[in-house]
């Protein structure tokens, strides 16, 4: 039985909106879907997108969340919001009113962040739902097509998903086409007779968008297979900015909900449970980075140092990497008590490498940044199409070795997509490793 009514939600939403406007926030209107536990699981499996295409991995995700939840290892999120205009957010029926109040205030923070942070400049929130819908329709059509069917579709999607994060990470950069690059190279050669380059080389510059490159250059893919790759690439583009700003985005939303709810003058029977919940959300996780915690604390410090208006500027211009790089210092790390650790073969144990003291804090900071968002994933780029149409890929080694077993599998997947041989070069334990 709910202890709240829709009128309650409307009442608090109106107050929240007024305070947020006074704070100078600028957000998309929000559509709240009131759903039950089952629907929440469903929404989570598809990362909230109501129109995502079908794939068995989302069924797996559903089961996983369901199991974890049943075993009490995870709670369902209080908030889930989609970067669309209007923003779509979910409220779970079973939750109590104070959770909804926090969620709604939190969602205003997210929606404001989506609308203002520059990482999201190219995300096209007006059309995102429709573009996912048409992709889902297309996938459905292929599955129902008797000459294609689910097995062939999955063969491509399984493979494409293995490289779905191998796309350019910084939104907003315009990459030159092969023709444009050729023009640049030719101009350089004309200007300087000594300058030499191989104009035959494809690509002329390293290509980081594996999905698009394969879709455009594979000699074996059918039209619908290329389209599937581009669909996966398109959906990656939607997620990349969120991965780039997880800490900031959550930190900002927590800052906003805390600010707003404190001004709401909630009655005690709502305010005390709210405080408890807020502290739960932003508590540090032992041995991990809780983005809610880190982001909230960092914004708290910045607001104290520079004021809220300055913080609003920061929420526009930074992403997690630049944000941490610029603003965490020894004092902050020491207070948060961050440390770095790794698995030592010799000790067969996880062992602490650095702690945040005078000599260690910079290393801890650097390792922290290496573990932020997409930095946790290796970068692999297309180097060249070699003789006999061999696709040559290179892993950009940054000191961390690839997981070889996974690498091998992904290599196999890329071969399925490319159709001809694929070479992948990396470094493992200081030696050249070729898959």
């Amino acid at each position, binding site marked *: 039985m709910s202890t709240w009514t*829709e009128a309650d*939600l409307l009442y608090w939403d109106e107050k929240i909106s007024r305070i947020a406007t006074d704070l100078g926030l600028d957000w998309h*209107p*929000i*559509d*709240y*879907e*009131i759903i*039950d536990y089952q629907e929440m699981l*469903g929404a989570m499996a*598809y990362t909230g997108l109501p129109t995502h295409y*079908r*794939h068995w*991995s989302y*069924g*797996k995700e559903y*089961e996983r969340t369901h199991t974890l939840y049943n075993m009490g290892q995870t709670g369902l999120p209080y908030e889930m919001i989609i970067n669309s205009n*209007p923003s779509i957010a979910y*409220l779970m029926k079973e939750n109590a009113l104070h959770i909804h109040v926090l969620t709604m205030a939190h969602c205003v923070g997210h929606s404001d962040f989506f609308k203002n942070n520059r990482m999201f400049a190219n995300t096209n929130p007006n059309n995102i739902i429709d573009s996912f819908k048409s992709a889902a329709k297309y996938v459905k059509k292929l599955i129902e097509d008797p000459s294609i069917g689910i097995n062939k579709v999955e063969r491509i999607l399984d493979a494409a998903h*293995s*490289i779905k*994060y191998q796309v350019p990470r910084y939104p907003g950069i315009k990459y030159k086409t092969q023709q444009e690059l050729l023009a640049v190279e030719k101009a350089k050669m004309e200007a300087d007779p000594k300058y030499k380059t191989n104009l035959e080389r494809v690509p002329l510059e390293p290509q980081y968008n594996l999905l698009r490159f394969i879709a455009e250059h594979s000699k074996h893919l059918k039209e619908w297979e290329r389209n599937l790759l581009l669909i996966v690439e398109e959906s990656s583009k939607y*997620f990349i900015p*969120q*991965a780039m700003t997880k800490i900031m985005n959550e930190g900002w939303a927590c800052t906003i909900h805390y600010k707003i709810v404190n001004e709401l003058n909630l009655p005690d029977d709502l305010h005390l449970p709210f405080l408890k919940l807020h502290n739960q959300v932003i508590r540090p*996780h*032992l*041995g*991990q*980075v*809780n*983005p809610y915690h880190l982001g909230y604390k960092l914004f708290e410090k910045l607001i104290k140092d520079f004021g809220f208006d300055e913080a609003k500027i920061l929420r526009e211009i930074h992403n997690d990497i630049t944000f941490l790089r610029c603003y965490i210092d020894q004092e902050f790390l020491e207070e*948060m*008590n961050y*440390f*770095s*650790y*790794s*698995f030592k073969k010799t000790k067969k*144990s*996880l062992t*602490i*490498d650095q*702690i945040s003291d005078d000599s*260690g804090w910079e290393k*801890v900071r650097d*390792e*922290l940044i290496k*573990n932020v*968002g997409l930095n*946790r*994933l290796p970068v692999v780029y297309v180097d060249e199409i070699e003789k006999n149409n061999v696709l040559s890929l290179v*892993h950009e080694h940054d000191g961390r*070795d*690839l*997981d*070889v077993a*996974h690498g091998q*599998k*992904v290599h196999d997947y890329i071969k399925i997509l490319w159709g001809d041989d694929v070479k992948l070069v990396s470094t493992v334990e200081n030696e050249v490793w070729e898959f």
Partner: protein
Amino acid sequence: MSVFRKHKSIVDRAASDRVRHKKKIEKAIKHSIKDVIAEESIIGQNGKKKIRIPVKGIKEYRFLYGNNENNKTVGSGGDHKLRRGQKIGKGRGNRARGQGMGPGTNEKGEEYYDVEVTLEELAEYLFNDLELPDLEKKQFRFVSQEAVKRKGYRFKGIRPRLAKKETVKRKIKRRKMAQKAGTFDPESDERFPFHQNDLKYHYIKPKDKDNSAAVIFFLMDVSGSMSQDRKYLARSFFFLLYQFLNHKYERVEVVFISHSTHADRVNENDFFKVATNGGTIISSCLNLELDIIEKEFHPNSWNIYTFYCGDGENWHSDNETSLDLFKKIKDLSQLTGYCEINETYKGLADDDDDQTFGISSWATFSAWKNEEMENLWAKLGPLCDNKFKKVMVGDTEHIWTAFNALFGGKIKS
């Protein structure tokens, strides 16, 4: 102002993807079954025992950083007593999953994860798609009448089977009619009692449960040439057969016969454990089987299955006799399987578990080993049809393919 919508979705949108995922798990289990069925520990267990099956192929793969010294993780500490070099745990597996995107680096890159199933479920997975070859309707010996089914209503019946709802319905009908006819006024205080004619009773019909009975004869060569390894393969093979028939039939009788130069009817334990020695006369066990069939299992009431497992060696002079006896047994049995354990047989290139095997392709291997075409394997050739099948097993991984070949290997789509 925000909009609030009560979500009214009738469809469970994740349903089809969940089904698909489940199918994948089942397929993966089937795929790993080859490794599992030869597991020492599951042989001879009853159906309730749980076994862990390593399943591969459902994992999603991405480029990841490996679990090594250069790949450092950062986290917040509980207190300020941390020091460099301090050990904090066994491995990344202990760490909870990170949030947000990215797969985290806690998986060790293993291809397998375990699924726990009972033997019964395992049989379900394994055998649901396989059909028994032409299952003749026999005069069933075990026809139980336990099942009863409600079927309609009758005006007569015993009190406990009174169908209250139907009875009330009839009364209401009667009252409405009475109202129309003007014989009853609902406004008045007059009662409108039940009438004998209102009463209806559930009718119960006994239902014959189709109950099928089968007897399986397991015949095994225990001559000196049957090494421990060969016996192990035979055992695994028999185990699978037993599970399968047990799954398909309500009631299964099993007769174990072991033979060297003479045959003995033994119990399960001895069948698998008894030491091996002596020469090989296959006809001895075939004779014993025919004997037992005549005395105990009339083919009109029993589905008879016969499976022979040996290393293909037999006294030369016995081959013709054995052949005749195999013919006889074939006529009495639903299916007769001849399995030869032969380490030189390396199997056919197979990656696809759905593949059906042509029986003819098996022959060459045995012939190659025995050099002459006089051996039993070759002689059995003409006998082969859908009621008599021969398979060869050289390694544990052949067991499943051999099994498929035996039972037609047809996968219901």
